[in-house]
């Protein structure tokens, strides 16, 4: 007994962990029904006191066989299913799918369609980031910024509703065109929104992002080193938060993104370590401003024209395959489509950014506290519809 105590004391003094100080481990089931798993994710946590020893994510609670469904549908019929993958960024999902099929069929879409698509995609990006920022604040315990974010998101949803009748799942971006042209006064509404929205960014910055308590909770927590991020295949704000300057809108330009002036935001580690929760969060906050810039330029350059002239009567691509990737609010969304020349795709494989980003959680959260794990999960910004598909 005496000897054991002496050994323990030496361990403590030298700071070496020989395993004797450890208490019993406990398994805690976090989810599938839990306030901060953002849906039906189940995390099996192995805990030593409050310290996370290991995380085993269990997926599939929201699996809806998207890929198998797609094989049974004609190409245009797949679009509503794309909406339902990442339901916070339905426009971006549709955009990616439509691009993939258009490239497969060599369709050139009219200028007006491209501009409207970009405006919609960027509005959707702002809406999605607003949810991410608000819910992240709520994970940390700040409730009020969440409602400020949702208040402004409503304006975007109103614009979408006026355009295509839906607020969440739009089926708006079609192969070769759009379901509807924008309504009269759309430009005015969008510009008005941007004018009203910019002060909100400042407001959320003051209330949440530069709050001492918030920074204490997020800085140097869940650090994702750039090399680890790249090797796991992370993308989007998750990867840019680690300082990797990579954005598909600039580096593999699709649609008309190469015509606009804007900056790719990367994390700088100014609050703590590069690649921590705060960096990922701030990349989203700053990206909203960049999206505003893109929208302003797109609205200024919006040409007249017919939006439905390139919509094919029969969508039946020649046999072949294509991989198309777009920058979703969560990262690189890829569609790999194989066509065998029939009216429905032979295979549709989706590379979901949320799924890939989530895979890194065990690597970056070992040794943190339960409260930190909630922060890390919030900063990854997953949408389970997309993770499980």
């Amino acid at each position: 007994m005496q000897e054991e105590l002496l050994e323990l004391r030496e361990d403590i003094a030298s700071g070496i962990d020989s395993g004797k100080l450890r208490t019993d481990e406990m398994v805690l089931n976090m989810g599938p029904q839990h306030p901060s798993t953002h849906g039906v994710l189940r995390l099996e946590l192995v805990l030593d006191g409050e310290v996370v020893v290991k995380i085993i994510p269990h997926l599939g609670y929201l699996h809806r066989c998207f890929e198998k469904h797609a094989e049974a549908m004609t190409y245009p019929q797949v679009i509503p299913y794309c909406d339902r993958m990442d339901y916070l960024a339905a426009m971006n999902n549709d955009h990616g799918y439509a691009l993939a099929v258009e490239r497969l069929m060599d369709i050139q879409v009219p200028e007006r369609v491209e501009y409207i698509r970009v405006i919609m995609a960027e509005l959707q990006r702002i809406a999605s980031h607003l949810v991410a920022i608000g819910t992240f604040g709520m994970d940390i315990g700040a409730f009020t910024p969440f409602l400020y974010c949702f208040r402004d998101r409503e304006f975007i949803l109103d614009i979408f509703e006026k355009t295509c009748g839906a607020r969440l799942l739009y089926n708006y971006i079609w192969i070769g065109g759009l379901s509807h042209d924008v309504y009269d006064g759309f430009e005015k509404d969008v510009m008005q929104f941007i004018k009203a929205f910019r002060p909100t960014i400042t407001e959320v910055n003051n209330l949440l992002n530069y709050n001492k308590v918030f920074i204490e909770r997020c800085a140097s927590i869940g650090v994702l080193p750039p090399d680890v991020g790249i090797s796991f295949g992370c993308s989007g704000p998750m990867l840019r938060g680690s300082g990797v300057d990579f954005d598909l809108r600039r580096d593999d330009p699709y649609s008309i993104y190469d015509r606009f002036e804007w900056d790719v935001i990367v994390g700088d580690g100014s609050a703590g370590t590069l690649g921590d929760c705060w960096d990922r969060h701030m990349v989203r906050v700053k990206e909203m401003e960049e999206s505003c810039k893109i929208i302003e330029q797109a609205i200024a350059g919006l040409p007249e024209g017919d939006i439905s002239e390139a919509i094919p009567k029969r969508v039946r691509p020649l046999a072949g395959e294509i991989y198309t990737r777009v920058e979703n609010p969560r990262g690189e969304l890829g569609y790999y489509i194989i066509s065998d020349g029939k009216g429905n795709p032979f295979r549709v494989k989706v590379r979901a950014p949320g799924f890939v980003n989530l895979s890194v959680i065990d690597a970056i959260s070992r040794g943190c506290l339960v409260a930190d794990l909630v922060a890390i999960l919030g900063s990854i910004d997953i949408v389970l519809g997309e993770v499980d598909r």
Partner: protein
Amino acid sequence: MEALLQDLLGENLLTTIVYCSLPLVFILVYALLAILGEVKISAWMQDRLGPMRTGPWGIIQPLADVLKLLQKEDTTPGTANKPLYNLAAFLPFMASYATFAVLPFSSEYVGADLNLGAFYLIAVSSIAVVGIIMAGWSSNNKYSLYGAVRSAAQIISYEVPAAMAVLIIVLFVGSLNLSDITVAQEGGFWNWFVFGGPKGEVTLADGGVISASWANIVYFPLFGATFLIYYVAGLAETNRTPFDIPEAESELVSGYHTEYSGMKFAMFFMAEYANMFVVSAVAVILFFGGWQSPYGTTIGDLAGIRWLGAVEEFGWFTVKGLFFVFVMIWLRWTLPRLRVDQLMHVCWKVLIPATFAIALVVGALVLVV
């Protein structure tokens, strides 16, 4: 007050029961108001309207909430330890109700004017922790257990700076009696301890005299800091944001009362709100003159109507207490939550050394001056 009741009801057990139940009436009315305040203030802060359907501007929403809770099924987990589980729901409320006994609501109403009032208050309010640990342990739920352990660590830690802050004022006044502490601040708001204490001479009930001196200049910042420390520690003791770690919704679902439903949940809820008032009331008694009006006298006293004066004093006490409850609600909807280790850091490395340093200086000054 007791004499008045005896006149009305005679000197019997009923009088005693009525006398003891008065704080309960106060708590119930206050809890309804505070819940309404919480939902409405949070709504205004967040660009919402809050409840609008129940009564004009939703003012009877708390009553509807209470009715809803009364009708709820009272579930007990199958694997729970039933006697402990049932008992635990009532302990936290019991503890905060017991502290109401020594709060001097006005010069005419103190439930029990104990000489050891401040000591009793600190001692009795600690019983809540027992209830919380019992609730967490007997629920047989891991989230509850985490909440209970966090809560115990938090409340016991923060009791140290809170008790030290009380002690600093007690050192100065030389009495643990809360009425004495209130009387020591008579004669206007400039005599409140948060502004450095009495500027003239005050005679206490037991004949002790406190007189002003050059040291008041030193007391002013010291007592101000003590107030802040007490209030922060009080926030932590009531498990309110930014210290709502034991019931951190995003981490532990709702902590130690995860498994409770219906009226048992309502008891925890009531205990939280009652505790908020106790902490605010003690802050008012120690630093903001208790039931003293800010201008030093009351209309009732000037007119020579004693009962009117007592009612006014009660009003001042309640208004000041409710103001600090409002500050708690304000903070809750503004600040994010701290992490467990940061919470402990604030307590043990900031608040406790600060209180000890202040106690040292105040003690020396009391000896010297």
